[in-house]
């Protein structure tokens, strides 16, 4: 009954802005035009001007705009409401202080094409962030330009391509053959996609029963002499540290390839171990994960690339350097660079937040955060060990992996468990990833949660396991406490409706 009544609840039934529009309403006021007006036809001939009078664009009052977005916002789960244990996504607390820093007018109001001498503060921010990230990864070369993780991957593998071409040339048969990028079957989808965009052909490496990269298979694949490189996530997407990392890297190096590390899981390593010390040649970091820049419902992100001195010449341009006189400037003088991957210098607003994160934590705090992140994952692993199936028994790092094996007997699957968690007030974990594990549930609590809430989560998961046995239907029908129930995604994809149209037109469509 509650639900039926809730459907008449205004906040629960906020329409689209277009449906709310009312002709003549305004949510803005501009200062009056303060120059003498030129007849519009003298400015622009009619054929270059819009003739649709922006039909369909909504007209709302300011209070209605605020109510609209406030109402729909209440349909979202968010970090400030509780645990957001999406494995591989590192949903940690987003400091309000960093938001304040990013809004300081001297930064927010600074135009990217302002002369460098009038933007020294911004360059200093980028320079110092570069220094700190280099220290954290143990890789001295760096570019802050990539806008997200996948963008950083693309940058990294393109650098590998450029480095190999510089080394082997592009003409010899040997060089032409060197096009294979090795990627474990557990990797994130962006890895193969990025490799493909950079002109590589992807070959997949098997994982062992322990959830580690299969060294034997790796050696086999390297035998062909066509290996350009490897893309490896470490800890891998099963939450396990690739303990053979050094050997893996040397196998690749001996085969004439280079090693790219996907840094999405750096939250398990900051202050504890450095990719540069493991033999990695290039890595991307997700500032919107490890360094807490807010995820924003799907971005903006920031995916800086860090590399060895050998690969430095191939980094995107420009990067920030410090002159003798202590001033900062952009350096574009890098003839072998892969070029630009984005206009301007990357998502500067995220650079500010990440630097603020590094400085408020301090070097001790960075390590403590890593320890807490791993400790919390261990706590959950331990708490759920008797209740859910664990595909691998190596101790988890910052995230732990379970499956729905024990629950499927009763017809309850990972998806159902995830949806049911919502009724207990938690965001579901990452599900069905990594692909190599059937019914995978990847749980990453991060360091931003206390023991009490971790226990609440463990209790909820156990309760759901019990329900799966005694009252499966409740789980299969979950969630029960949300504005809408499970949505028919298959139907949505079959006949996609991707935009609003005025009623009559819609009918036509």
């Amino acid at each position: 009954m509650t639900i039926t009544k809730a459907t008449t609840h205004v906040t629960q039934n906020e329409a689209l802005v277009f449906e709310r529009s009312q002709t003549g309403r305004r949510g803005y006021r501009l200062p009056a035009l303060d120059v003498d007006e030129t007849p519009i036809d003298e400015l622009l001939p009619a054929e270059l001007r819009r003739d649709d009078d922006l039909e369909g664009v909504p007209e709302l009052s300011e209070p209605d705009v605020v109510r609209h977005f406030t109402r729909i916002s209440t349909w979202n789960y968010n970090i400030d409401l509780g645990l957001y244990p999406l494995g591989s996504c590192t949903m940690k607390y987003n400091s309000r202080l960093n938001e304040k820093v990013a809004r300081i007018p001297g930064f927010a109001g600074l135009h990217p094409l302002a002369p460098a001498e009038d933007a020294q503060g911004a360059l200093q921010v980028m320079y110092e962030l570069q220094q700190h990230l280099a220290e954290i990864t143990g890789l001295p070369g760096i570019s802050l330009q990539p806008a997200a993780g996948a963008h950083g991957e693309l940058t990294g593998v393109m650098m590998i391509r450029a480095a190999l071409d510089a080394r082997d040339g592009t003409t010899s048969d040997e060089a032409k053959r060197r096009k294979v990028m090795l990627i474990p079957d557990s990797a994130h989808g962006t890895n193969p996609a990025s490799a493909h965009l950079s002109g590589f052909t992807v070959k997949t490496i098997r994982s062992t029963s322990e959830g580690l990269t299969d060294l034997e298979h790796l050696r086999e694949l390297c035998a062909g002499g066509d290996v350009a490189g490897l893309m490896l996530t470490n800890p891998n997407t099963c939450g396990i540290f690739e303990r053979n990392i050094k050997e893996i890297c040397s196998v690749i190096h001996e085969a004439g390839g280079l090693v790219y590390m996907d840094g999405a899981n750096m939250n398990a390593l900051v202050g504890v171990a450095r990719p540069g010390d493991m033999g990695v040649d290039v890595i991307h970091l997700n500032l919107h994960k490890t360094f807490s820049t807010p995820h924003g419902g799907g971005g903006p992100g920031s995916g800086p690339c860090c590399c060895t001195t050998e690969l430095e010449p191939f980094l995107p341009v420009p990067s920030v350097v410090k002159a003798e006189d202590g001033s900062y400037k952009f350096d574009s003088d890098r003839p072998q660079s892969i070029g630009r991957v984005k206009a301007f210098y990357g998502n500067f607003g995220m650079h500010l937040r990440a630097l603020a994160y590094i400085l408020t934590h301090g070097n001790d705090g960075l390590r403590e955060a890593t320890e807490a992140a791993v400790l919390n994952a261990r706590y959950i692993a331990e708490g759920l060990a008797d209740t859910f199936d664990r595909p691998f028994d190596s101790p988890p790092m910052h995230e732990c992996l379970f499956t729905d094996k024990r629950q499927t007997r009763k017809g309850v699957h990972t998806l159902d468990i995830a949806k049911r968690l919502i009724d207990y007030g938690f965001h579901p974990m990452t599900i069905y990833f990594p692909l190599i594990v059937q019914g995978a549930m990847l749980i990453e609590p991060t360091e931003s949660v206390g023991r009490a809430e971790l226990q609440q989560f463990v209790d909820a998961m156990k309760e759901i396991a019990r329900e799966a046995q005694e009252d499966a239907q409740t789980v299969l029908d979950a969630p029960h406490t949300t504005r809408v129930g499970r949505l028919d995604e298959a139907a949505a994809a079959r006949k996609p409706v991707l935009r609003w149209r005025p009623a009559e037109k819609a009918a036509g469509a």
Partner: protein
Amino acid sequence: MLHGLGLGSAEELFDSLPADVLLKRPLDTPAALAESELLELFEAMAAKNAAARRPSFLGAGAYSHYAPTIIDSLIQRSEFFTAYTPYQPEISQGTLQAIFEFQTLVCQLTGMDVANASMYDGSTAMAEAVLMAERVTKRSRVLVSAAVHPEYLQVAETYVAHAGIELGRLEVDETSGRTSLDAAALEKDVAAVVVQSPNFYGCVEDLKAFAEQVHATGALLVVVVTEAASFGLLRSPGACGADIVVAEGQSFGVPVSFGGPYVGLFATREKYARQIPGRLAGVAYDKEGRRGFVLTLATREQHIRREKATSNICTNEGLIALAATIYMTALGRRGLQEVAEQCAQKAAYARRQIGALEGFSLPYSAPVFNEFVVRAPSEAEGLLRRLAESHHVTGGLALSRYSAERPNDFLVCVTETNKRADIDALVAGLKQS
């Protein structure tokens, strides 16, 4: 907690790491700062950004427009800015509905059928459009106007380097300032023609004419817009026949913030919907028939298609797209028009004044929106520097930054935020500098 887990010390948490990869020393980064210390530090650095305190006529891909206060206050709701990508629709309907509204607004402004949930920015959106054109036409030559933003062109060059796509160049007519497209350039194997309008020099291109010629050869017309405010006044690319429209959405309520985060708009025709890169939100219903929204057509994307995906993009610019959505909604139909008209009027005023200055000229004849090239009597970079120092105004962008052969040219951008007094100060300054 450690002991509860049978661990003696925090070090033991990392027993699965071989000793020889462990960092045996503290990180060589600074010790922790208190909130107040951090704010002072950043305020001090911000104070060194003198340019942020001057009236400015810089545009060229990043534009200063007024953003209503409600935008920042709404996007700072935890429900929006601390949420993840909406993978679980039942508890992400706020984000999903906003994306659907964003897609619709982008379609309305660009005059297209389908728009995605955003790209990193305008430059990467253009590069993705080039890749998409190749997928759609199976042709490998793409002609790009020389009047496209130089950094956009550089990004495209990087993206196509290993995609087997060759980029050709369309020259700019030195009297009109518009891109010239000679039939010869349009050989059979052309996948797409890429033009920016208003172009990098501020000139509004004759897109209709382009569309006819381009379509005649079976190629696609890709239109790039860096100043989204122009949508309020200029004929939409869709109405002119564009097949793909990409734009930088920063003008819609997003601070210039030294170059990012911005938001890339990407729109195309219905028939190409399944070739579009990035995320798409669509309508879906639950058992009770309640309307909701989900991410859809995921089979295009990397997490399903892996190397065969239409793009590698995953995280996009969600929160910035939301800011743009709120901006478009708050200004709405009339506000978007009024902003565009004020930009055009003020730019016209500034252009008249500067054009009348002794020794200064306006090299291009084509109509402009809110940016235009000025040819100075002397070397522009020095001129602008003197202007900044003596008159505390950033007069524009010296084009020598991108092309050495234009020592005396600079690009002036005027928006609704530039007061008449600032424009007059600029004119007076140019006269004296």
